[in-house]
Protein backbone atom coordinates (compact mmCIF):
# COMPACT_ATOMS: atom_id res chain seq x y z
CA UNK A 1 0.00 0.00 0.00
CA UNK A 2 1.52 3.29 -1.08
CA UNK A 3 0.65 6.52 0.67
CA UNK A 4 1.31 10.24 0.67
CA UNK A 5 4.84 9.82 1.99
CA UNK A 6 5.66 7.48 -0.88
CA UNK A 7 4.40 10.08 -3.30
CA UNK A 8 6.77 12.62 -1.80
CA UNK A 9 9.60 10.08 -2.08
CA UNK A 10 8.78 9.47 -5.73
CA UNK A 11 8.88 13.17 -6.57
CA UNK A 12 12.14 13.58 -4.68
CA UNK A 13 13.49 10.57 -6.55
CA UNK A 14 12.50 12.06 -9.90
CA UNK A 15 14.02 15.43 -8.98
CA UNK A 16 17.25 13.70 -7.99
CA UNK A 17 16.85 14.86 -4.40
CA UNK A 18 16.96 11.34 -2.97
CA UNK A 19 20.49 10.30 -2.16
CA UNK A 20 22.57 7.70 -0.33
CA UNK A 21 20.82 5.17 1.86
CA UNK A 22 17.40 6.76 1.26
CA UNK A 23 17.76 6.28 -2.47
CA UNK A 24 19.01 2.71 -2.06
CA UNK A 25 16.11 1.87 0.24
CA UNK A 26 13.65 3.38 -2.20
CA UNK A 27 15.11 1.45 -5.13
CA UNK A 28 14.96 -1.78 -3.09
CA UNK A 29 11.26 -1.14 -2.56
CA UNK A 30 10.80 -0.55 -6.27
CA UNK A 31 12.06 -4.06 -6.91
CA UNK A 32 9.41 -5.61 -4.75
CA UNK A 33 6.40 -3.26 -4.63
CA UNK A 34 4.35 -3.27 -7.81
CA UNK A 35 2.05 -0.49 -6.68
CA UNK A 36 5.00 1.79 -6.00
CA UNK A 37 6.36 1.06 -9.46
CA UNK A 38 3.00 1.95 -11.02
CA UNK A 39 2.90 5.21 -9.12
CA UNK A 40 6.43 6.05 -10.21
CA UNK A 41 5.46 5.27 -13.80
CA UNK A 42 2.46 7.55 -13.60
CA UNK A 43 4.65 10.45 -12.51
CA UNK A 44 7.26 9.63 -15.16
CA UNK A 45 4.53 9.58 -17.80
CA UNK A 46 3.20 12.90 -16.56
CA UNK A 47 6.66 14.43 -16.53
CA UNK A 48 7.40 13.20 -20.07
CA UNK A 49 4.05 14.49 -21.28
CA UNK A 50 4.69 17.93 -19.82
CA UNK A 51 8.15 18.06 -21.35
CA UNK A 52 6.66 17.27 -24.75
CA UNK A 53 4.53 20.42 -24.61
CA UNK A 54 6.67 22.86 -26.57
CA UNK A 55 6.36 26.59 -26.23
CA UNK A 56 3.87 27.81 -28.82
CA UNK A 57 5.13 30.52 -31.17
CA UNK A 58 3.42 33.89 -30.79
CA UNK A 59 1.42 35.16 -33.79
CA UNK A 60 3.81 36.54 -36.42
CA UNK A 61 2.29 40.00 -36.29
CA UNK A 62 1.94 40.27 -32.51
CA UNK A 63 4.80 42.73 -32.17
CA UNK A 64 3.67 45.04 -34.98
CA UNK A 65 -0.03 44.76 -34.23
CA UNK A 66 -0.14 45.10 -30.46
CA UNK A 67 3.13 45.51 -28.63
CA UNK A 68 4.93 48.17 -30.65
CA UNK A 69 1.85 50.44 -30.78
CA UNK A 70 1.39 49.99 -27.02
CA UNK A 71 5.01 50.94 -26.34
CA UNK A 72 4.74 53.90 -28.71
CA UNK A 73 1.59 55.06 -26.98
CA UNK A 74 3.25 54.73 -23.61
CA UNK A 75 6.25 56.75 -24.75
CA UNK A 76 3.98 59.33 -26.26
CA UNK A 77 1.71 59.55 -23.24
CA UNK A 78 4.18 59.52 -20.39
CA UNK A 79 7.82 59.80 -21.36
CA UNK A 80 7.53 62.47 -24.03
CA UNK A 81 4.21 64.14 -23.46
CA UNK A 82 3.77 66.70 -26.25
CA UNK A 83 3.76 70.24 -25.02
CA UNK A 84 5.36 69.27 -21.72
CA UNK A 85 8.08 71.71 -20.75
CA UNK A 86 10.20 68.93 -19.27
CA UNK A 87 9.87 66.84 -22.40
CA UNK A 88 10.72 69.83 -24.55
CA UNK A 89 13.82 70.60 -22.53
CA UNK A 90 14.81 66.95 -22.34
CA UNK A 91 14.53 66.55 -26.08
CA UNK A 92 16.48 69.71 -26.70
CA UNK A 93 19.17 68.68 -24.24
CA UNK A 94 19.75 65.32 -25.95
CA UNK A 95 19.72 66.90 -29.40
CA UNK A 96 22.14 69.63 -28.36
CA UNK A 97 24.70 66.90 -27.85
CA UNK A 98 24.98 66.90 -31.64
CA UNK A 99 25.36 70.49 -32.85
CA UNK A 100 24.57 69.47 -36.41
CA UNK A 101 20.96 68.76 -35.55
CA UNK A 102 20.24 71.66 -33.24
CA UNK A 103 18.96 74.02 -35.94
CA UNK A 104 16.80 71.33 -37.49
CA UNK A 105 15.47 70.38 -34.09
CA UNK A 106 14.56 73.93 -33.24
CA UNK A 107 12.66 74.36 -36.49
CA UNK A 108 10.95 71.00 -35.98
CA UNK A 109 9.81 71.97 -32.49
CA UNK A 110 8.40 75.28 -33.66
CA UNK A 111 6.60 73.59 -36.54
CA UNK A 112 5.36 70.88 -34.20
CA UNK A 113 3.83 73.39 -31.83
CA UNK A 114 2.22 75.21 -34.74
CA UNK A 115 0.78 71.95 -36.04
CA UNK A 116 -0.57 71.01 -32.63
CA UNK A 117 -2.30 74.38 -32.36
CA UNK A 118 -3.79 73.93 -35.82
CA UNK A 119 -5.12 70.52 -34.92
CA UNK A 120 -7.58 72.02 -32.48
CA UNK A 121 -9.60 73.10 -35.52
CA UNK A 122 -9.52 69.82 -37.43
CA UNK A 123 -12.87 68.86 -39.01
CA UNK A 124 -14.22 65.25 -39.02
CA UNK A 125 -13.24 64.90 -42.68
CA UNK A 126 -9.78 66.15 -41.91
CA UNK A 127 -9.66 63.64 -39.08
CA UNK A 128 -10.23 60.80 -41.59
CA UNK A 129 -7.40 62.11 -43.70
CA UNK A 130 -5.30 62.43 -40.61
CA UNK A 131 -5.91 58.78 -39.62
CA UNK A 132 -5.08 57.68 -43.16
CA UNK A 133 -1.92 59.73 -43.20
CA UNK A 134 -0.82 58.32 -39.84
CA UNK A 135 -1.53 54.81 -41.07
CA UNK A 136 0.53 55.43 -44.21
CA UNK A 137 3.39 56.77 -42.14
CA UNK A 138 3.26 53.67 -39.96
CA UNK A 139 3.28 51.40 -43.03
CA UNK A 140 6.22 53.26 -44.51
CA UNK A 141 8.04 52.99 -41.21
CA UNK A 142 7.37 49.24 -41.07
CA UNK A 143 8.81 48.92 -44.59
CA UNK A 144 11.91 50.83 -43.55
CA UNK A 145 12.37 48.70 -40.46
CA UNK A 146 11.94 45.49 -42.45
CA UNK A 147 14.46 46.67 -45.06
CA UNK A 148 16.91 47.65 -42.35
CA UNK A 149 16.57 44.27 -40.67
CA UNK A 150 17.28 42.48 -43.93
CA UNK A 151 20.26 44.69 -44.72
CA UNK A 152 21.68 44.45 -41.23
CA UNK A 153 21.42 40.66 -41.27
CA UNK A 154 23.09 40.52 -44.66
CA UNK A 155 25.94 42.70 -43.44
CA UNK A 156 26.33 40.60 -40.30
CA UNK A 157 26.93 37.62 -42.57
CA UNK A 158 29.49 39.55 -44.60
CA UNK A 159 31.28 41.16 -41.70
CA UNK A 160 33.68 38.27 -41.06
CA UNK A 161 35.07 38.88 -44.55
CA UNK A 162 36.01 42.46 -43.70
CA UNK A 163 39.31 43.51 -42.28
CA UNK A 164 39.35 44.25 -38.54
CA UNK A 165 39.81 47.98 -39.25
CA UNK A 166 36.82 48.10 -41.54
CA UNK A 167 34.74 46.10 -39.13
CA UNK A 168 35.58 48.61 -36.43
CA UNK A 169 34.63 51.53 -38.68
CA UNK A 170 31.43 49.77 -39.65
CA UNK A 171 30.43 49.00 -36.07
CA UNK A 172 31.26 52.48 -34.78
CA UNK A 173 29.46 54.29 -37.59
CA UNK A 174 26.46 52.01 -37.27
CA UNK A 175 26.37 52.70 -33.55
CA UNK A 176 26.35 56.46 -34.19
CA UNK A 177 23.59 56.10 -36.75
CA UNK A 178 21.56 53.91 -34.37
CA UNK A 179 21.88 56.59 -31.72
CA UNK A 180 20.60 59.16 -34.17
CA UNK A 181 17.72 56.85 -35.04
CA UNK A 182 16.91 56.38 -31.36
CA UNK A 183 16.77 60.16 -30.91
CA UNK A 184 14.68 60.59 -34.03
CA UNK A 185 12.30 57.87 -32.81
CA UNK A 186 11.92 59.54 -29.45
CA UNK A 187 11.15 62.76 -31.21
CA UNK A 188 8.72 61.05 -33.55
CA UNK A 189 6.89 59.33 -30.71
CA UNK A 190 6.62 62.62 -28.89
CA UNK A 191 5.22 64.34 -32.01
CA UNK A 192 3.94 61.54 -34.27
CA UNK A 193 1.84 63.88 -36.38
CA UNK A 194 4.53 66.44 -36.95
CA UNK A 195 5.67 66.28 -40.56
CA UNK A 196 9.17 67.44 -39.71
CA UNK A 197 9.50 64.83 -36.98
CA UNK A 198 8.45 62.18 -39.50
CA UNK A 199 10.92 63.47 -42.06
CA UNK A 200 13.61 63.60 -39.42
CA UNK A 201 12.90 59.95 -38.58
CA UNK A 202 12.84 58.73 -42.16
CA UNK A 203 16.00 60.67 -42.93
CA UNK A 204 17.69 58.79 -40.09
CA UNK A 205 16.45 55.45 -41.44
CA UNK A 206 17.52 56.40 -44.94
CA UNK A 207 20.96 57.31 -43.67
CA UNK A 208 21.34 53.84 -42.20
CA UNK A 209 20.11 52.16 -45.38
CA UNK A 210 22.52 54.25 -47.46
CA UNK A 211 25.40 53.52 -45.15
CA UNK A 212 24.89 49.76 -45.18
CA UNK A 213 24.34 49.78 -48.94
CA UNK A 214 27.58 51.71 -49.42
CA UNK A 215 29.42 49.32 -47.18
CA UNK A 216 28.06 46.39 -49.11
CA UNK A 217 29.73 47.80 -52.23
CA UNK A 218 33.11 47.33 -50.56
CA UNK A 219 32.67 43.62 -50.49
CA UNK A 220 34.60 41.50 -51.50
CA UNK A 221 37.31 43.55 -49.96
CA UNK A 222 40.17 44.77 -52.01
CA UNK A 223 43.25 46.36 -50.41
CA UNK A 224 42.22 49.82 -51.65
CA UNK A 225 38.80 49.32 -50.06
Amino acid at each position, binding site marked *: *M*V*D*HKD*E*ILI*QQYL*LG*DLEGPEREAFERRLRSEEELV*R*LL*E*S*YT*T*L*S*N*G*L*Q*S*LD*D*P*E*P*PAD*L*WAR*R*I*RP*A*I*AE*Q*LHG*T*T*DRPGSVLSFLGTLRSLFLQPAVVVTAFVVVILGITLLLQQQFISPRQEDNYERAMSNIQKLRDQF*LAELDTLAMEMERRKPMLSPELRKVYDQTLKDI*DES*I*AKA*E*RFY*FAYPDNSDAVQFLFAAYEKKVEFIEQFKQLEPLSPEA
Partner: protein
Amino acid sequence: MEEKLIERCKHGDVRAFEDIYNKYGSKLYGMCLRMSGNEADAEELMQEVFVILLSKIKAFRGDARFSTWLYRITVNTCISHLRKKKFKQVPLDDEIETSGSLRVAPAPMAHRESLKRGIAGLPAGYRAAVIMHDIQGLNHREIAEIMGISVGASKSQLFKARRKLRDYLNGAMPTTAGGS
Protein backbone atom coordinates in the same frame (compact mmCIF):
# COMPACT_ATOMS: atom_id res chain seq x y z
CA MET B 1 25.70 42.68 -25.43
CA GLU B 2 22.53 42.49 -23.34
CA GLU B 3 23.72 45.42 -21.24
CA LYS B 4 23.77 47.61 -24.34
CA LEU B 5 20.30 46.42 -25.25
CA ILE B 6 19.03 47.31 -21.79
CA GLU B 7 20.67 50.74 -22.00
CA ARG B 8 18.95 51.36 -25.32
CA CYS B 9 15.64 50.35 -23.74
CA LYS B 10 16.27 52.79 -20.92
CA HIS B 11 16.62 55.50 -23.55
CA GLY B 12 13.27 54.63 -25.06
CA ASP B 13 14.63 52.92 -28.17
CA VAL B 14 11.71 50.96 -29.57
CA ARG B 15 14.01 48.78 -31.67
CA ALA B 16 15.70 47.61 -28.49
CA PHE B 17 12.34 46.49 -27.14
CA GLU B 18 11.79 44.68 -30.40
CA ASP B 19 15.12 42.91 -29.96
CA ILE B 20 14.03 41.83 -26.50
CA TYR B 21 10.75 40.62 -27.94
CA ASN B 22 12.60 38.63 -30.60
CA LYS B 23 14.87 37.10 -27.99
CA TYR B 24 12.39 36.26 -25.24
CA GLY B 25 8.98 36.57 -26.94
CA SER B 26 8.51 32.88 -27.51
CA LYS B 27 9.13 31.86 -23.90
CA LEU B 28 7.09 34.75 -22.55
CA TYR B 29 4.21 34.04 -24.91
CA GLY B 30 4.33 30.37 -23.92
CA MET B 31 4.05 31.41 -20.30
CA CYS B 32 1.20 33.84 -21.01
CA LEU B 33 -0.71 31.36 -23.16
CA ARG B 34 -0.41 28.49 -20.72
CA MET B 35 -1.21 30.71 -17.77
CA SER B 36 -4.27 32.31 -19.38
CA GLY B 37 -5.43 29.33 -21.41
CA ASN B 38 -6.43 31.32 -24.47
CA GLU B 39 -4.74 33.31 -27.23
CA ALA B 40 -6.67 36.56 -26.79
CA ASP B 41 -5.69 36.83 -23.14
CA ALA B 42 -2.13 35.77 -23.94
CA GLU B 43 -1.79 38.64 -26.41
CA GLU B 44 -3.23 41.07 -23.89
CA LEU B 45 -0.78 39.80 -21.28
CA MET B 46 2.18 40.11 -23.64
CA GLN B 47 1.22 43.71 -24.34
CA GLU B 48 0.90 44.41 -20.64
CA VAL B 49 4.27 42.78 -19.91
CA PHE B 50 6.05 45.03 -22.40
CA VAL B 51 4.29 48.16 -21.17
CA ILE B 52 5.37 47.26 -17.63
CA LEU B 53 8.86 46.53 -18.91
CA LEU B 54 8.98 49.99 -20.46
CA SER B 55 7.85 51.63 -17.25
CA LYS B 56 10.25 49.67 -15.03
CA ILE B 57 13.34 49.26 -17.17
CA LYS B 58 14.99 52.37 -15.75
CA ALA B 59 14.79 50.80 -12.30
CA PHE B 60 16.60 47.66 -13.47
CA ARG B 61 20.03 47.74 -11.85
CA GLY B 62 21.28 44.33 -12.90
CA ASP B 63 21.07 42.79 -9.42
CA ALA B 64 19.30 39.81 -10.98
CA ARG B 65 19.73 38.42 -14.47
CA PHE B 66 17.65 40.35 -16.96
CA SER B 67 15.86 37.20 -18.12
CA THR B 68 14.93 36.36 -14.53
CA TRP B 69 13.69 39.88 -13.95
CA LEU B 70 11.65 39.81 -17.17
CA TYR B 71 10.20 36.42 -16.24
CA ARG B 72 9.24 37.79 -12.84
CA ILE B 73 7.33 40.62 -14.50
CA THR B 74 5.60 38.12 -16.77
CA VAL B 75 4.65 35.67 -14.04
CA ASN B 76 3.40 38.43 -11.75
CA THR B 77 1.41 39.97 -14.59
CA CYS B 78 -0.16 36.61 -15.41
CA ILE B 79 -1.02 35.83 -11.80
CA SER B 80 -2.42 39.31 -11.26
CA HIS B 81 -4.45 38.99 -14.46
CA LEU B 82 -5.89 35.67 -13.33
CA ARG B 83 -6.87 37.10 -9.99
CA LYS B 84 -8.50 40.13 -11.57
CA LYS B 85 -10.49 38.12 -14.03
CA LYS B 86 -11.33 35.44 -11.48
CA PHE B 87 -10.28 33.07 -14.15
CA LYS B 88 -12.57 30.15 -14.75
CA GLN B 89 -10.79 26.99 -13.75
CA VAL B 90 -11.41 23.51 -14.98
CA PRO B 91 -12.89 21.95 -11.86
CA LEU B 92 -10.23 19.87 -10.19
CA ASP B 93 -10.41 18.55 -6.68
CA ASP B 94 -9.33 21.37 -4.44
CA GLU B 95 -8.29 19.14 -1.61
CA ILE B 96 -4.93 17.49 -1.89
CA GLU B 97 -4.78 14.21 -0.11
CA THR B 98 -2.38 14.34 2.77
CA SER B 99 -2.65 10.79 3.95
CA GLY B 100 -4.13 7.42 3.13
CA SER B 101 -3.77 5.24 0.12
CA LEU B 102 -3.73 6.46 -3.44
CA ARG B 103 -6.84 5.91 -5.40
CA VAL B 104 -5.97 5.58 -9.07
CA ALA B 105 -3.77 3.38 -11.16
CA PRO B 106 -1.40 5.24 -13.47
CA ALA B 107 -2.52 6.59 -16.83
CA PRO B 108 -0.84 4.85 -19.78
CA MET B 109 0.08 8.11 -21.49
CA ALA B 110 -0.53 11.78 -20.91
CA HIS B 111 -2.51 13.17 -23.83
CA ARG B 112 -1.55 16.71 -24.76
CA GLU B 113 -5.05 18.10 -24.71
CA SER B 114 -5.81 16.57 -21.34
CA LEU B 115 -2.55 17.95 -20.04
CA LYS B 116 -3.38 21.42 -21.31
CA ARG B 117 -6.82 21.26 -19.70
CA GLY B 118 -5.26 19.98 -16.52
CA ILE B 119 -2.73 22.81 -16.45
CA ALA B 120 -5.47 25.35 -17.12
CA GLY B 121 -7.31 24.06 -14.07
CA LEU B 122 -4.44 24.49 -11.65
CA PRO B 123 -4.30 27.41 -9.23
CA ALA B 124 -2.12 30.23 -10.58
CA GLY B 125 0.96 29.55 -8.43
CA TYR B 126 0.97 25.83 -9.17
CA ARG B 127 0.41 26.54 -12.83
CA ALA B 128 3.36 28.91 -12.99
CA ALA B 129 5.60 26.36 -11.24
CA VAL B 130 4.70 23.48 -13.54
CA ILE B 131 5.02 25.63 -16.69
CA MET B 132 8.41 26.97 -15.69
CA HIS B 133 9.87 23.70 -14.41
CA ASP B 134 8.33 20.93 -16.50
CA ILE B 135 7.63 22.74 -19.77
CA GLN B 136 10.19 25.51 -19.99
CA GLY B 137 12.96 23.67 -18.18
CA LEU B 138 13.86 26.21 -15.50
CA ASN B 139 15.40 24.87 -12.31
CA HIS B 140 14.04 25.41 -8.82
CA ARG B 141 16.60 28.05 -7.96
CA GLU B 142 15.54 30.12 -10.96
CA ILE B 143 11.85 29.61 -10.25
CA ALA B 144 12.35 30.58 -6.61
CA GLU B 145 14.08 33.78 -7.68
CA ILE B 146 11.41 34.61 -10.24
CA MET B 147 8.51 33.97 -7.89
CA GLY B 148 10.17 35.44 -4.83
CA ILE B 149 9.89 32.22 -2.82
CA SER B 150 12.31 29.69 -1.36
CA VAL B 151 13.64 26.72 -3.30
CA GLY B 152 11.72 24.47 -0.91
CA ALA B 153 8.51 26.35 -1.59
CA SER B 154 9.11 26.03 -5.31
CA LYS B 155 9.53 22.27 -4.96
CA SER B 156 6.43 22.10 -2.85
CA GLN B 157 4.41 24.06 -5.45
CA LEU B 158 5.60 21.71 -8.16
CA PHE B 159 4.86 18.65 -6.06
CA LYS B 160 1.31 19.78 -5.42
CA ALA B 161 0.81 20.82 -9.01
CA ARG B 162 1.98 17.45 -10.34
CA ARG B 163 -0.17 15.64 -7.87
CA LYS B 164 -3.25 17.56 -8.93
CA LEU B 165 -2.40 17.01 -12.56
CA ARG B 166 -1.86 13.32 -12.03
CA ASP B 167 -5.17 13.00 -10.21
CA TYR B 168 -6.86 14.96 -12.97
CA LEU B 169 -5.36 12.80 -15.71
CA ASN B 170 -6.25 9.61 -13.92
CA GLY B 171 -9.81 10.81 -13.68
CA ALA B 172 -9.95 12.11 -17.22
CA MET B 173 -8.20 9.37 -19.11
CA PRO B 174 -8.60 5.63 -19.51
CA THR B 175 -6.20 3.54 -17.51
CA THR B 176 -4.79 0.09 -18.03
CA ALA B 177 -4.91 -1.01 -14.45
CA GLY B 178 -8.38 0.08 -13.47
CA GLY B 179 -9.88 3.25 -12.10
CA SER B 180 -10.26 4.65 -8.64
